[in-house]
């Protein structure tokens, strides 16, 4: 399976990743060689093998339904590029 320049642009759009034209061209070659490596997987027979999502296969532990966190909004927002009155500021979305 080989990607085209349009595929790279489509995936970059899905990932919200801005690429210059030069980056798109360079990335295309590299992504295709990586996918060539990845495609070696297809030689392995995995019929009937259950996918392994997690090495320990533990069940999630539950904790008591109690409030343990305190409010850190001010501290957490202090590292935001732009925040005001407890809100994160972004370009206008709704006219």
């Amino acid at each position: 399976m080989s990607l085209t320049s349009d595929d790279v642009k489509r995936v970059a759009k899905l990932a919200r990743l801005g690429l210059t034209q030069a980056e798109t061209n360079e990335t295309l070659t590299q992504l295709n060689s990586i996918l060539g490596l990845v495609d070696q997987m297809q030689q392995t027979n995995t019929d009937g093998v259950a996918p392994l999502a997690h090495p320990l296969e533990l069940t999630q532990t539950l904790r008591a339904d109690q409030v343990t966190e305190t409010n850190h909004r001010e501290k957490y927002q202090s590292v935001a590029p732009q925040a005001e009155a407890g809100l994160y500021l972004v370009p206008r979305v709704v006219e």
Partner: protein
Amino acid sequence: MSQITDLTLAQLKQALDDGDLSSVEITTAFLDRIDSLNPELNAFITITHEDARKAAADADAARAKGKASAFAGLPIAHKDLFCTDGTRTTCGSKMLADFVAPYDAHVVSRCQQAGLISLGKLNMDEFAMGSSNENSFFGAVRNPWDPSRVPGGSSGGSAAAVAARMTPLATATDTGGSIRQPAALTGTSGLKPTYGRVSRFGMIAFASSLDQGGLIAHTAEDIALGLGLIAGHDPRDSTSADQAVPDYTATLSDSLKGKVIGLPTQFFDERLDPAMRQSMNDVLDVFRSLGATTVEVSLDHIAEAIPAYYVIAPAEASSNLSRFDGVRFGYRAEHPKDLTDLYERSRGEGFGSEVKRRILIGTYALSEGYYDAYYKKAQQIRRLIKQDFERALNQCDLLFGPTTPSTAFVIGEKTADPIAMYLEDIYTVATNMAGLPGGSFQAPLIDGLPSGYQLTGPAFGEGAILNAAHQIQTATDWHTLRPESL
């Protein structure tokens, strides 16, 4: 006494306990060495002189009153993906170049509670993606054994700093080999614990089902001391194992008589470099002289580990790194014309090229219509790999092999070819896929450069790995060799 910076963590602790050295003397010696070597090696991104000096004076005062904690006043440095409250955490990226975390990582808090003093934050491949430390926004790290060569990665700063005696102990992380490979290339000891042994809270995530924090030091003994501090359950990481932490130092001196070392045939086939084979045989001779026996085992699906890893790790990364959107923290592009432009340019300008490649691969693998061919297939192979390890470890106590295919390569040699770089981790990624503990320790030099051997154990078998490595280090002096120029 030899120079302060030559001492291991255990030796420094003894000197503090005996009153032969003060924490101020120790901290000053390491800070001075960092100041003199870092301009060339670039192992540290941030050096915390003032905080360290103050903490050292406090530790000495506490010791004088008999109120010091066990490790009070001993130095450590953290890989720059462990969040540190009040000191910037960059993850080697432009995206986080000015980011000051609002909290400490669990590992950082545990070290602090034990009294360890942080000397600063260590360089790394951007978001831990790389095997050479050339992918850092803050510049490549140089190998203390030969500054024209890479120290390995992604924990290249951690490994170079320990090798150059800029710190006796460093935290590090390993997703596909990022502790073991740099340890091998710099002549240091490195341990990736079992998945879940060390809390990932406050570790900036790359691939969450593979990432694990660990340590790099000069000796297995020092790692045993450090692991006792950072291992254990943390309710803030739901994947951290609720399992008691043994005293890893208590079993270091156990005899290896009767222990069985498994040699995966796939690690020793005709592709293994002859010099590396000789180095491995030298280590195996010592194992045998200590009473261990060897047995051939097979890891049938090892060849598929790299292909499957380059689906799973990028897939998880593409999801994890979606949080860097220019809104809540990190880099934001200037003058965005709308929200999409803000997302796309902040990420496009903030991430380096390897990170972008992996986000694109992961996004593609997870996109509509490709799930079965890529992600599901990779997870099926992951189970086959785990089963291989279970079968092999039923026949032996520990698995043994080279950590890397060769010694440290020259800076720039593999940057144009991502596949060549990915194959650096050919012996290490499978361990992460299976979630098992793995350590790399010093083997003989090859043409004046370090080589490393790798030990892989059963889940939560860190004690057995450290015991075996300590026994080798007691019988040999490979771990004491150091770059001539330093």
